[in-house]
Structures are given as C-alpha cells and as structure tokens.
C-alpha cells in the first residue's frame, strides 16, 4: 500500500484512526501494531512472515547480547546475511561469474519491501543493547518500533530509546490530527504534484540514454537537475508523510531533510540530507571504525562506500558513495587548510555563493550515477553534460549570434523526448520551493520535536523563517484544502509512481 494510493488515504488510514480511537490506550498500541502488520502484508504476506521472524529473532537475541561481543557479532552477521541474501546475492553472483568465468545461478526473488530499513533499524537496537542502553525491553514496543507503518518501508530510521517511550503517550486528538494531517498533506503534495510532475521528463531522458539515444547538452542537464529535484521532493515528501502520520498518533519522528540543497558544503549537505541514515552511519559505522581518531579519511571513504552500496546492488551506487567519500575528504582537507591559515572566519557572501554553486554542482553530478541504470547510461549523460557530443542550441539563436555558427542549431531539446513547456513550470517552481521556502522543520517547529535526537547536528538557525510558521488558522486551512483538492485531482489523473526510496 502506497501512501499516495486511494486505498491508503481513503480506507486504511481513516479506518485505523477510527478503530484506534475506540480502544483504550494499552489496547490501542495493539491496534497500531496490527494495523502496521496489515499495511506491510498488503504488499506480501510472506514478507510479513519474514519481518515478524526478523523482529522475534532480534528481540530474543538482544536479551543475551549485553557486553557479549560474540553474540553481538553473530546477531549483526545474521542480519547482514539476510540483507545480502535478498538484496546483494544476484549482484555478487553476477560479478563473481564475470571474474571467475563460471556460471553462478541467479535467484529470482523479489526484494522484501523496506528490508534495508528494518534491518538497519534492528542492528542499531542490537548495538545499543550490547552497550546496555535498554533495561526496559518490551516486545510489543520493539515490534511496533520496527514495523510502525509510517516508517517501516522507507524510514526515517529511529532509535528505540527515542520512540519507545512515546508509545506510552499515543493518542488521537484534534490537535494531533490537525498537525499530523497537515504535515502529511504537505508531504503528499511534494510527492504527487512536484516529484511525480517532473518524473516523466527525467525518465524520458534517462530511458532514452539507456536505449542509446544521445541526449543533447540541454537535455542532459535538464535530466540531471530534474532528477536532483525529483529525488528530493520524492524522498523528503515521503519522510514528511511519515512524520505527519506518526504525529497523528502523537509520536514524534526526527526530521530527515533540512533543506539539503541550501547547503554550502558537502559536509553541510550530509548534515541535511537523509539525516537519520547519516546519523546511523556515523554512530554505527564511522565511529566504530575509528571515527576522527585514526585513519579518518579511510573511515570516511569506507562509510560512504557502504552507504552507497546500501542504496542498491549496482556499481553505480558504489561509485556514487565513493564520489561522495572523495567529496567529503576534499571538503575536510579544505577546512583543515583554512583553519591552518586562520581563514575560518572569512565567510563573505561571495565565498558562500561560490561554495553553494560548487556544492550543488557536485551533488547534481553525483545524482546522475545514482539515477542511471548502468555505468554506460551515466557515461552517455556525462558526455552530453560536458559537451562531448557537441552543444545544440535553438535555431533562433543563429539570428541573434551569427558568429556562433560552429554550434549545432538543431534545438536545445533536439531529440524531442517530451514537451519542455509541459515540465518547465514544475521545474522552476520546485527550484524556488526548495531554495526559498521553509521546510517542515521551520514550519512546525512549535508542534513537533524534530531535533530531539539531533543535537549534534549543526542545523543553522538562520534557516528558521518565523513569518511562515504554521498555526491552526483559517488561512492555513484554506491553503491545505486547496492543496488537498489539487492532490486528489492529480491522484485521479495519473498512474501511481512508486516512491524512489522503495527500491533501496
């Protein structure tokens, strides 16, 4: 069941709210747990069995894990083995077949939905249990933490100690419904209107490149920037929906995206993009590897490589992770150099603008790898982006600048893969939204405890725009009603596009 489907919005969610409201607090937790299982089983009942087995195994083993390295190693290995079996088996088999020149049989198994998320979620629990953080273990709370429908499929990743205590205070009220419902609608709008609005143009370019059609200079940049926007609105929209849905039941989830495209450095970008994954990788991978204490750059590169591989079993993801690892190393070296030279306080506007341009350029370049089905497709797009296939411009420019007659005048979008004017308004408005408008955290800072567990993150208070902060006013009610009608019309109009992060 997708959050953007009719069955979820008009059947599952209202029904769950009504049933939840009927029961007493303790029983209502069972309703949430059962509802979450139904939500997951809607995709596949066999996968639900896998999820319940995984939860049971991890809960039982966590009882014997405290200060026992061997049990921890075995438990974490079992979880990783599960994810390797389902997600990476074919990738490993394919590469080994190629290297060893032997035929290793592939398996025809569908990837269980959200396996990357629920496995990581439980590894975090196991590691925390090893350090003895959880004395008050409760199976129902643990099972609900892992399977809770707002985040079971695509995050955000949360820690037991942050969310389990909140289960004691779950409840539905006008306040919870208003706040949670509004955040959900904003997330839905980001996904359905903006991300899905851009998606066909991006797909046309990447699919055409995959088929061997060479995109023009403008088309390749349109595709790369379009995907940059699509991915952000798709995934941050999903995260907002998850935060909103949890908030409807009075559960506060941490913010997952803090306007990442406003970042003026790659380090800053990773403090703003998929923050719950960044926190997980930092706490459970980077720091155990040695963190900043020794072999910092090796640890950084390894963490980003694994982060890349987590997103999918493809060399494009590994290279994407590697690229970001290199970016981060360069960024840290640059920072250290500035510190040595005593130039850290020099943050002029021009420096910040240049930093932002360089950062967003690097991010856009990396998303091409992330989106491409194969390295060949990525190379074709890169070649076009950097003019290796020539630069094609509009024929009308020939009249204006006749000196540039060496340029190809077949049109900016010479392959005519889509009607540019259909997508340009969504394209431009999405750039304005992600660069100029406040995000969920800015809007709802008074109503959701976003930063409870992210005190180490350097979220710049300059981002907080108080003038647009949400309040339960008539004006916001009208705005939300307009957005809802728009969403419903769009839902009626198009075929559902799955959330991009469902694939990871």
């Amino acid at each position: 069941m997708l959050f953007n489907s009719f069955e979820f919005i008009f059947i599952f969610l209202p029904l769950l709210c009504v049933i939840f409201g009927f029961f007493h607090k303790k029983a209502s937790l069972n309703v949430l747990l059962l509802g979450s299982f139904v939500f997951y089983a809607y995709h596949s009942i066999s996968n639900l069995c896998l999820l319940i087995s995984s939860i049971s195994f991890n809960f039982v083993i966590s009882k014997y894990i405290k200060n026992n390295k061997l049990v921890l190693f075995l438990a974490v290995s079992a979880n990783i083995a599960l994810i390797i079996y389902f997600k990476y088996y074919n990738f490993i088999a394919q590469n080994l077949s190629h290297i060893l020149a032997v035929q290793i049989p592939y398996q025809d198994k569908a990837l269980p939905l959200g396996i990357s998320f629920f496995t990581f979620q439980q590894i975090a629990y196991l590691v925390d249990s090893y350090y003895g953080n959880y004395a008050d273990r409760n199976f129902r709370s643990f099972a609900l933490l892992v399977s809770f429908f707002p985040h079971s499929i695509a995050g955000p990743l949360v820690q037991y100690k942050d969310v389990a205590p909140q289960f004691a205070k779950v409840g539905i009220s006008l306040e919870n419904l208003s706040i949670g419902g509004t955040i959900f609608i904003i997330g839905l709008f980001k996904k359905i209107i903006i991300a899905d609005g851009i998606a066909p143009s991006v797909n046309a370019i990447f699919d055409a490149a995959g088929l061997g059609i060479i995109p023009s200079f403008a088309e390749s940049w349109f595709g790369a920037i379009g995907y940059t926007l699509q991915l952000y609105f798709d995934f941050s929209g999903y995260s907002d929906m998850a935060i909103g849905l949890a908030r409807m039941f009075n559960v506060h989830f941490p913010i997952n995206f803090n306007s990442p495209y406003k970042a003026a450095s790659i380090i800053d970008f990773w403090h703003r993009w998929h923050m719950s994954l960044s926190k997980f990788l930092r706490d459970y991978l980077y720091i155990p590897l040695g963190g900043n204490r020794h072999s910092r750059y090796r640890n950084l590169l390894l963490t980003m490589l694994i982060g890349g591989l987590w997103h999918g079993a493809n060399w494009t993801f590994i290279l994407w992770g590697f690229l970001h690892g290199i970016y981060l190393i360069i960024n840290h070296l640059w920072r250290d150099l500035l510190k040595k030279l005593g130039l850290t306080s020099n943050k002029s506007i021009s420096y910040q603008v240049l930093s932002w341009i360089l950062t967003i350029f690097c991010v856009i370049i990396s998303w091409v790898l992330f989106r491409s089905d194969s390295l060949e497709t990525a190379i074709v797009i890169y070649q076009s982006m950097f003019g290796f296939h020539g630069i094609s411009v509009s024929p009308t420019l020939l009249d204006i600048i006749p000196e540039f007659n060496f340029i190809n005048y077949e049109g900016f979008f010479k392959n005519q893969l889509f009607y540019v004017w259909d997508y340009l308004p969504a394209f431009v408005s999405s750039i304005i939204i992600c660069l100029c408008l406040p995000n969920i955290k800015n809007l709802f800072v008074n109503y959701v405890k976003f930063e409870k567990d992210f005190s180490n993150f350097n979220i710049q208070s300059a981002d907080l725009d108080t003038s647009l902060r949400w309040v339960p006013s008539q004006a916001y009610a009208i705005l939300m009603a307009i957005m809802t009608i728009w969403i419903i019309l769009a839902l009626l109009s198009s075929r559902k596009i799955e959330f991009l992060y469902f694939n990871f």
Partner: protein
Amino acid sequence: MKTGGRHQANDTKSTSISNTIIGIHFHRYIRTYSFLVLLSAIPMLLNYLFLLYSGEFLSAKDIYDKQNYPEPHEIIYGSALFNDVSELKLYSYKSKKPQIISFGSSRVLQLRESFFTKPFYNLGSMASSIHQALDVATLLLKEHCPEVIICGVDFWWFNNTYQKPDYHLMSANIPVINKIDPAHLLQPFKWLREGIISVGQYLRFYELDFNPNIGVKGKIKGSGFSSDGTYS
C-alpha cells in the same frame, strides 16, 4: 500558603482556558478544511462519474476487448479528452497482427476492413511528418511484419522547412490513452457551457452506460474509431 494555593488555582484555570482556546482553534481549522474539501468534491465527483460512465477512463486493452470480443463488432471509440489514440492503435495492431495495414496521416483513415479480403487494420493518423513515420514504422515492424503496407504521406512532409512542432519521439514516449489530467475533470463544465452536452445528459450520466459506444464523442455524437482503426 493560602495565596500560593490561590495562585496555583489561577494558573490551573488559565492553563485550562488557554487549552480550550487552542482546542477551539484546532476545531475551527479542521472544520474549515473539511468543509472546503467536501464542497469542492461534489461537482468534481459528478464530473468524474460522467466521464467514468462515458468510458473515458478505459485503458487501450479495455477498449480493444470491448471492440473485439467475442468477435469484432461496431463499437465506436470517440474520446472527447484524448486526440492521440496511438496507444490503442498500437495495442490493436499487436493483438490483431493484420496482414494488410494502412499507415500514415489522417488521410488514410477512409480505408476500411470491408474493402479487403484479408485481415486489415488502419493505422492512420499515427504520423504527421517523415521522421515520425519512420519512427512509428520501426516501432510497428518490431512487433509484427504485415504482408502489405499502404503508406499515406502528405507532400509537405518532404519539404525541408516543415517540422511538426509538437512531434515527440514515439518509440520513447507513447501517450497513454487514459492518462487523465486534473484539468480533464473540469471539461464537462466546458461542454455544458458550450452546449455540447445538455444538463439532462450530464445529470443522467448513468444512462450513458446503455450506449455501447465508448467515450463522450462516441456515446453522444456517434463519432470515433471503429474496431478496424477507421474513423467515422
């Protein structure tokens, strides 16, 4: 002690008052929101039902099945929302695998199956330039190779300066026949205003189901594409 107790009582009272005020705000917020959403839903729902009963939301496969099962019969598909029926024509072509086809601009649409003794399908109006014709032909031949292809081309296609402005690469992007745009849900209002449909026809949308044709044009005007791909 007494004063402190009074202060505490006052604090509790003021907290309770502020909670009530907050509660009123949330109540008003939800009431306004729900009212507006429900209000706008009524006409949209009527429009949606009108389009649904007229068959505008049917997919290419559904239309093909209705036109051809249990055997090909005279059911017209005339959409008032979608001019480009390439998806339906391609689907029909793939399913029928005809031995003779006519292909090109809308000028070949007059060739009917009854003119031939072998299975025939009309793929007219799928191309409007030489580039598009080549693109569509490649796409068709990938699926099936007919014995005879009757090509209808317009002379201006061979003019170098002619470039159809809205041409898009067919093989990369075939327009989906029932991909409804939100704006489509407003179309019945436009048809009512222009007198294309009457208020009676609009309100008795459920009667549209009795007419076997598909689409608003098909049901109301009796015009559209037949099962052999011709337009009448």
